[in-house]
C-alpha cells in the first residue's frame, strides 16, 4: 500500500464514528487494494503516484466517502460537517488569541490589572459566541445554496492529504495554551510585564533576584525564539497536521535554543542576587547557590527535552522523505 493510500484511509477514518471506523476502513483498504491491483495488471507495472491519486480522486474526497456511511439528517450536512468544527476552532482560536494579546496590553497599562482582565474575559465570551453564530450561519447558507458534494469533490487533491500518521494533529487547546505562555514570555522578556523578584530567606531577610549579564548577550536570539514559538503555535491552531514547514520551524527553534543554552551555560552563574536590608553575606551566598542550582536543573532538563525533540523531528523528516521516495521510483518508470 502506498503512502498516499494510507493517508487517504487515515483521513476517512478520522471522520467516521469510532465504533465502526476500523471495520469500514479495513473494507475500504481491501477495495482500494483490489482496484490498484487491477490497475497494475492493466498497466503491466505498479501505478505511479499520479495514477494512485487518480484512483483516490475517483473514489471520492474523504469527507464525502465518510458521509456516505452516515444516514442521518443535519442542519449542517455530513459532507460539510467535517469542515465545520475545524472552521469554528480556527475562527474562535484567532479571536481568543487577539483578545489574549489585547488583554495583556490593557492589563499592563491599567492601574487595576485584575479588573481589566475580568472585563476582557466578559467580552471574549460574547465575541466567541458571536463568531460561532456567524460561522454556523455561513455553513448553513453554503449547505442550502451550494452543492456540498460537488464542492467537496472539487476542492480536494489526494496529494495534499495530511501525513497524520507522522504526528497526531495538535489539539486547539494545547496550541492555545502554548501560545498564551509564549505571549506571556515575550511580554516578560521585553520588560512589559514584571514579576516580583524578591526571595524571602528567613524572618527579616530577603534577596532580590535578577538575571546575570550573560542573558543580555542572548537577548535578541531569545526574543526571536519567543516570537518564532508564538508563530509556530499560531500556525498549529490554523493547520494542526504535521507539515515539513512546521517541522522546519521546530528544527530551527530547538537548534537555536540549544545554542543559546550553550552560550548561557558558559557564562554562569545564571542569576545575580542583591542583598536587602538584614541580609548577611552567608544568606547571599546560600540564595545564589539555591537559585542558580534551580536554574541549572531547569535549563539542563530543558536542554535534554529539546535535544530529544530535535532528534524526533529529524526522524519525522527522514520518515516523510522515505515515504515520498515512491514518487521518484514512479517517475523513473514513466
Amino acid at each position: 500500500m502506498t503512502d498516499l493510500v494510507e493517508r487517504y484511509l487515515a483521513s476517512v477514518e478520522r471522520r467516521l464514528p469510532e465504533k465502526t471506523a476500523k471495520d469500514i476502513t479495513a473494507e475500504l483498504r481491501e477495495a482500494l487494494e483490489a482496484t490498484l491491483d487491477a490497475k497494475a495488471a492493466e498497466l503491466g507495472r505498479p501505478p505511479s503516484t499520479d495514477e494512485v491519486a487518480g484512483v483516490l480522486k475517483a473514489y471520492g474526497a474523504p469527507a464525502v466517502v465518510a458521509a456516505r456511511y452516515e444516514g442521518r439528517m443535519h442542519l449542517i450536512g455530513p459532507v460539510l460537517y467535517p469542515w465545520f468544527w475545524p472552521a469554528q476552532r480556527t475562527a474562535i482560536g484567532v479571536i481568543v488569541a487577539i483578545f489574549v494579546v489585547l488583554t495583556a496590553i490593557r492589563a499592563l497599562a491599567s492601574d487595576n490589572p485584575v479588573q481589566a482582565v475580568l472585563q476582557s474575559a466578559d467580552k471574549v465570551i460574547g465575541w466567541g459566541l458571536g463568531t460561532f453564530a456567524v460561522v454556523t450561519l455561513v455553513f448553513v447558507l453554503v449547505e442550502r445554496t451550494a452543492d456540498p458534494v460537488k464542492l467537496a469533490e472539487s476542492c480536494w487533491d489526494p496529494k495534499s492529504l495530511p501525513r497524520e500518521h507522522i504526528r497526531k494533529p495538535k489539539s486547539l487547546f494545547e496550541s492555545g495554551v502554548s501560545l498564551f505562555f509564549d505571549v506571556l514570555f515575550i511580554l516578560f522578556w521585553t520588560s512589559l510585564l514584571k514579576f516580583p523578584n524578591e526571595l524571602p530567606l528567613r524572618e527579616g531577610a530577603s534577596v532580590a533576584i535578577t538575571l546575570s549579564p550573560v542573558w543580555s548577550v542572548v537577548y535578541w536570539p531569545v526574543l526571536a525564539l519567543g516570537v518564532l514559538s508564538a508563530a509556530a503555535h499560531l500556525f498549529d491552531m490554523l493547520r494542526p497536521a504535521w507539515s515539513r514547514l512546521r517541522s522546519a520551524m521546530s528544527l530551527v527553534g530547538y537548534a537555536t535554543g540549544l545554542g543559546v543554552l550553550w552560550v548561557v551555560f558558559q557564562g554562569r552563574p545564571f542569576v545575580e542576587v542583591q542583598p536587602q536590608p538584614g541580609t548577611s553575606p552567608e544568606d547571599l551566598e546560600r540564595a545564589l547557590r539555591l537559585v542558580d542550582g534551580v536554574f541549572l536543573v531547569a535549563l539542563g532538563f530543558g536542554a535534554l527535552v529539546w535535544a530529544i525533540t530535535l532528534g524526533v523531528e529529524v526522524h519525522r523528516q527522514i520518515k516523510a522523505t522515505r515515504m515520498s521516495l515512491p514518487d521518484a521510483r514512479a517517475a523513473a518508470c514513466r
Partner: protein
Amino acid sequence: MPIAADILEALRLELRRGTLILAVLGTLRAEQYGYSLKTRLAEAGVDIDEGALYPMLRRLESQGLLVSEWREEGKRQKRFYRLSADGAGALEQLTAEWRAMNAALNSIIEGGRT
C-alpha cells in the same frame, strides 16, 4: 427547450437507486466480496460507483438482508457477503414487485406510443 443535463442525471439516479438494490441482492445469491461483486455487476451491465456500493452493503447487512464474514483469500483479508434467509425472502418479493411494475410500465410506455 432541451432538458438540462443535471436534471436528467438526477432523474436517472433516482430511477436507478431502487433497481441497484435489486441487482445487488440478486447477485449475492452467490457469495461475493466487494470488488468481485462490482465486477459481476459491471459484466451484467450494471455500473455502480464503489463509493456507493460499500455503504449500501453495510446498510443491507444492518437491515438483516445480508450476512458477511472476513476471510483470507489470495493472501488478503476480504469481506464476503451473501444473501441471508430474510434477504432471500425480500429478493423474492422485490422481484415479483419489479416484474409487476415492469409490466405496468411497459404497458404505459407502449400504450402512450399508439
